[in-house]
């Protein structure tokens, strides 16, 4: 078993400024710089068999005006889940696409673009996917106030209080 872990540590040794933290028996958390992430993915894929990119998630940090992209990778060889965290600033909100390394990335990036507005350079398709009729700003940002939007856009059902005690709505 340690031979596989050995290959994983070889990767970590090769990239100096990684902050690796084994958070569980088969879970590893890596904090990596934005520009170093693609090389990390390539190394993991080549050396340690991390073929499976199961998801890319995005966390919005409004106070430091940063997006945190988390790449969840799994290797059947090492059977260890890596979540690589990286931070990108708000204003350009652009990052490079890892589509050429992992094909499923196109849908995760498309989703993040739709929900957070991050533009992934090189991603083949970033058209609206779920919110096809949406005209507003990217809704999952913490800056977007859903309740205000809902109150502004939709009307509510007006209730007569006496319905409470006569559920058939007066028809008996």
């Amino acid at each position, binding site marked *: 078993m340690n031979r596989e872990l050995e290959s994983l540590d070889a990767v970590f040794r090769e990239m100096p400024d990684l902050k690796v933290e084994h958070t569980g028996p088969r879970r590893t958390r890596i904090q990596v710089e934005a520009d170093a992430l693609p090389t990390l993915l390539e190394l993991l894929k080549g050396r340690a068999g991390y073929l499976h990119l199961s998801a890319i998630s995005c966390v919005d940090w409004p106070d430091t005006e940063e997006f945190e992209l988390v790449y969840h990778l799994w290797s059947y060889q090492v059977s260890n889940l890596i979540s690589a965290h990286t931070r990108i600033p708000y*204003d*350009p*909100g*652009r990052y490079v696409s890892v589509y050429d390394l992992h094909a499923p990335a196109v849908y995760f990036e498309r989703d993040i*673009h739709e929900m957070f*507005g991050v*533009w992934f350079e090189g991603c083949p398709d970033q058209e609206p996917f*779920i*919110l*096809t*009729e*949406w*005209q*507003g*700003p*990217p*809704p999952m940002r913490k800056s*977007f106030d*859903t*309740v205000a*939007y*809902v109150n*502004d*856009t*939709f*009307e*509510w*059902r007006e209730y007569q209080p006496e319905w409470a005690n006569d559920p058939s709505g007066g028809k008996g």
Partner: protein
Amino acid sequence: MSTDPNQAVACRTVDAEERSLLGRVLDRIADHCRARSLFVLHYCTGCGAIELPPTMTSRFDLERVGMQPMVTPRQADILLITGYLSVKTLKRVVMTYEQMQGPKYVIGLGSCTINGGMYWNSYATIKLLDRYIPVDNYIAGCMPRPEAIQQVFLDLMGRIDRGEAQAWKDYYRRYDWYLGQQQQLFGTNWQAPTDVVGEAIRYRLVGEQTLGSHTAHLERYAPYYDQLGIIRPEPARMKARPQLEVVSR
């Protein structure tokens, strides 16, 4: 012209009072059979679809009252919306509703269709189903049990039998209002493949509000204005939508 659909009961094409005795007998038979043979198309939008199998099959067996599940809207009488509706799904629901034929009924299953349910604060779900398509019955509950569903079906059958369930005509008579509501969500160039106003004219179900400022947006309905002798109003200005924050490309 009152907006209550139940008053103007125009059966075939002539108002009820002028119908001959034979016409009234035929309609009585038709309503009798219509109530006892309802084909259900359940549009599994959300979590409610799982309530239908027990209702249809051996545990509660709706075939006892002549109801059959049907696959396409063309053959269905009842459209069962079973769960929350996102804006994208609503567009398909409206298309499906318009493809359904003749006396059609909509039953909203679950509180999500009544007031948005537990997704009330979501930007994507709609809150009031009857703003977009006329709804006959609502079943409160998250998710209601088959007994409740059966209860509503029996109530609807009774109203059909008495010839009261005419909400579907409301869609033709106040199409402009419905279209306005839909355009608020889908944008002003939204149009389903079905030519609703043409059908309204064909079946003499044109009301005061069939054509109005909202239908003026759509070029396809332009010829109907002069056909019905209505001057084409200036297209209604849509409510200002939240400004589109340009994402840097």
